[in-house]
């Protein structure tokens, strides 16, 4: 049934957005890094993977290269800025993200500029001539689970605990001898790597990418996902992605029933996103799924 195709598409997008949400959550929710340029790592992962596979490299190589390069940029951006205040960091990261997008847009020799890259190869397409979307769905779900697993492990590790401490009480952490800057850089890089993973999955699914896929608004959408879902919480990140995607999709159907013109509906949809953000920050800042405060049982 064709309807199944629709659901498959939605779930693949939820999977990709979940990875983005999980990776941003690691930076924001766990490490307390106000990254507003997340879309840049998404773009780097997408373009790298696309360019390499179009030049003949195997998919996994493209994927890992995308992740590595995104991580590298995370490192480059966070290295000089690690000591800045949170809100300055936010501004710097938006600016950095835009510079990267402008670079892709204007340097046509790199990735065809505004024309974008078409014909990005689909991994293992020959093995699944029919029902390829189902294979892609499984692959997206696999990577989403993989990301979730890694995030969970990291959070529970000493490294993750240190990050949380830095997030809560930076002065205390540095007095305990933790190299705060180094940890922040690590947090940024890890988040960037997984955003690159999402980017690669996106590129190979859409088979076409161009700079207008990577506008600043995409970062804001992911922010809304983690705020609503619950910061510092991996399940929350996924719930947030699911919620926002569902809202987006179901409002598209609304106009078929109610006589709202499509253009007003789109503004209303954006308004709703902003409104949800405001309401949640004011009245339910911990999000739908609050971070479990683990108490240490003393035996």
């Amino acid at each position: 049934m064709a309807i199944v195709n629709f659901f498959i598409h939605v779930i693949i997008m939820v999977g990709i957005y979940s990875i983005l949400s999980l990776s941003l959550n690691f930076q924001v929710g766990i490490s307390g890094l106000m990254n507003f340029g997340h879309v840049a790592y998404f773009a780097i992962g997408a373009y790298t993977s696309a360019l390499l596979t179009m030049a003949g490299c195997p998919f996994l190589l493209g994927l890992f290269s995308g992740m590595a390069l995104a991580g590298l940029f995370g490192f480059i951006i966070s290295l000089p800025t690690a000591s800045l205040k949170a809100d300055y960091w936010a501004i710097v990261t938006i600016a950095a993200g835009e510079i990267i997008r402008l670079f892709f847009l204007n340097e046509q020799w790199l990735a065809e500029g505004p024309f974008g890259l078409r014909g990005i190869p689909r991994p293992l397409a020959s093995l699944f001539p029919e029902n390829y979307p189902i294979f892609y769905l499984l692959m997206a779900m696999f990577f989403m689970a993989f990301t979730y697993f890694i995030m969970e492990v990291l959070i529970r590790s000493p490294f993750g605990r240190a990050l949380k401490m830095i997030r809560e009480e930076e002065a205390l952490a540095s007095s305990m001898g933790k190299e705060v800057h180094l940890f922040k850089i690590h947090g940024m890089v890890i988040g960037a790597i997984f955003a690159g993973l999402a980017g690669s999955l996106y590129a190979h699914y859409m088979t076409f990418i161009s700079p207008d896929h990577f506008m600043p608004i995409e970062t804001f959408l992911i922010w809304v996902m983690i705020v609503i879902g619950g910061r510092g919480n991996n399940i929350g990140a996924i719930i947030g992605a699911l919620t926002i995607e569902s809202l987006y999709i179901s409002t598209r159907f609304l106009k078929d029933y109610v006589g709202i013109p499509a253009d007003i509906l789109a503004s209303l949809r954006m308004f709703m996103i902003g409104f949800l953000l405001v309401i949640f920050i004011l009245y339910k800042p911990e999000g739908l799924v609050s971070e479990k405060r683990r108490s240490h049982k003393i035996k």
Partner: protein
Amino acid sequence: MKNIFIACLVFLTAFFLIGNVAVNAETIRIGAIFPLTGGSAAEGQDEKMGAEVAMDEINAAGGIFGRRLVIIFEDDELRPVAGVDAVHKLIDVNKVPVIVGTFSSGVTLPVAEYAQQQGVVVINPASTSPKLREVGDYLFSVMGLDDLMGKELAKFAWERGHRKAAVLVPNNPFGIGVLENVSKTFKELGGTITTSVAYEMGKIDYRAELGRIFGKKPQALLYTAYGEESKIITKQAYELGYKAEWFGAYLTMCTSVSVPKAVEGHLGLEPGYFGPQAEHFRKLFMKKHGREPATSFSAYAYDAVWLAALSIGKAGLNRKAIKDALPIVAKHYKGATGDVTFDKDGQRANQDYSKLKYTRGKVKPYK
């Protein structure tokens, strides 16, 4: 609490989807994806209005097989992801046999790719990227791809005696396509291009770009610009007192909302502006919407919807049959944008361009 919230969302989505599956036997539905919001909202809405004119005209003539034609409009927000969501909805859920759209090549490409996979015809009224040629046999373009417009514009300027020209276009596939064709032809004719600038869309100040162009004192400026930016560009050029002869590709779009004083005397080209069909379309548009079309994209969308309806009329609702019928139908159809015969790739084969001049608030034929 969270469980209830999620359950509601899932239920809501399911409700909408299931409700939509029931096909209304009294109407024939096709899909249309345009940028109704976002940076190109004016052009997208113009497309929608042109499509509506066609829809009304078809229904007034009895519809298709006596059934009413209904267009399901979707907004792509000028975002490729939204376009892909829209095409999935239209194909997987609404099950339309034909889709008209979109506007920006960046959105049309992924939309057409999915439709190609699913064997649904897409008729493109506005995108011009040469990459569209590679999509497949289910994508047809009413808008001329190879941008013969660029070539013709260069020739026009040359005929007017200009030998030094500058080029100004938007920084997207459409603009760069015009830029490349215009520059190539002008140079081949023997002229010099003093400067080329691809402007960022969506800004409200273009004085720096204008300064760069007019600093080299070109005799002519070969440009194309979407209505909103064109208004600012021409206004600021006027204020700054820059002088040159301006040649606009798609002149009606360039002058649609500009201040008349600022574009007085501008020359340019418009695809198939004159002719009984074009006049007929504009009359209908005026009657339905109370004003003239803002750009020629409405005329293209009008032709696209007509072609879709005629193909369905000839072939029925089978998608492959529609695909096969479309080129045949197009050969005989005289559209608002002229002769829309397709070439072997399903892209528009010819486009004749009318030379226009903007005087006293309107575009008139150039003599």
